[in-house]
């Protein structure tokens, strides 16, 4: 499983994290990335068309 250990070298998550500090707000970079991904998923769910809509339209 050598490729797994080389992947861990690219993303070494056991090292101390990076934190963004602004006034009393303190957030880790990884938490910020996850939060952005969650918001992006929510927006995608809102604005992307339902899967299968085109085929339904064609059938109509």
């Amino acid at each position, binding site marked *: 499983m050598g490729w*797994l250990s080389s*992947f*861990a070298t690219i*993303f*070494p*998550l*056991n*090292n*101390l*994290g*990076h*934190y963004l500090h602004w006034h*009393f*707000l*303190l*957030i*880790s*970079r*990884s*938490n910020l*990335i*996850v*939060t952005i991904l*969650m918001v992006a998923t929510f927006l995608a769910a*809102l*604005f992307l068309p339902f899967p299968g*809509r085109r085929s339904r339209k064609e059938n109509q």
Partner: protein
Amino acid sequence: MSTKRFRPDVDAPEYKGGYSPYDIIKEGTIAIGVIFLLTLLLAILFGSPDEHAITIKTWSNAAPIDFATTATSELNGTSTTGGYGAPYNNASDGPALGPIHVAHLIGVRIPINTVKDFVIDPLKSLPNQPVLDQNLAMWASASTSTRSTWIANYTKASANMKFTDGHVVVNATDAGPVPVMVDSLTQMARSGALDQALVTGSGFYTTDFTKPLLFVSDGTYLADLATKQHLSGDQWGMMNETGSYPGQAWLWLYSFWYQIPPFNTSGNADILILGIMLLLSVGLLLLPFIPGLRSIPRRTRVYRIIWREHYQNLK
């Protein structure tokens, strides 16, 4: 006969449009399958945090003076556990929600006498220690005031505590058996025997780690490690994970209160914030019954974005 007035935030208009089949079981199965595969893939690629457990052995070897200073605080009653109150002792009132002292309602359910449980009893369990046994006998036969004097003298001198050649050295006068007790406890801790002595004794299965965890948390070693990893309460620590792993981002609101006045300076913050979060949770549960708030989805019209095709067809 009067017609009942239509209330837009409570009543649903009768739907007169068309219907189309929708397989929610199929969608749920696909969603769970995708989540399962994503979880598996991310676990294979990134693994999970693998911090070694902090034991009394690791602590006392890494920071023997901090351990011996904490052992002294267990003797003189100034440790966090010693002054905690319920459920461990009656040393303080504990957190209060208005006039209600919540800890009092629970009572002393896990009685801990820091002198006896953290120092004397573990030392008694050490075999073949004639010098220590003599000192423990001296402790046992002394009056309460004599013990207090010994501890006070040792505590005063421990400001200049040193750790030399594997021993705790404190130049204390009239401290009775306390220097031998603290040094022996430190030796015991460094060997790993204190971890065992504090865990065992609570039944056949040794799964009760209350005492060693409390002892470790009374020192500054664990707190320093937590601060380094951004896990302290004033660092939004509830949301964070060790290393660079993403943490519990969904606890942002719970963590938020700890960062602002008056909670960030209150000794009562835990119970106050628990109360606020309980209130907010009840509010969320009762949202359909709260006028104004229950109209937010109708007024923001986000549903019209989701079902935009349907509303376009209506035009």
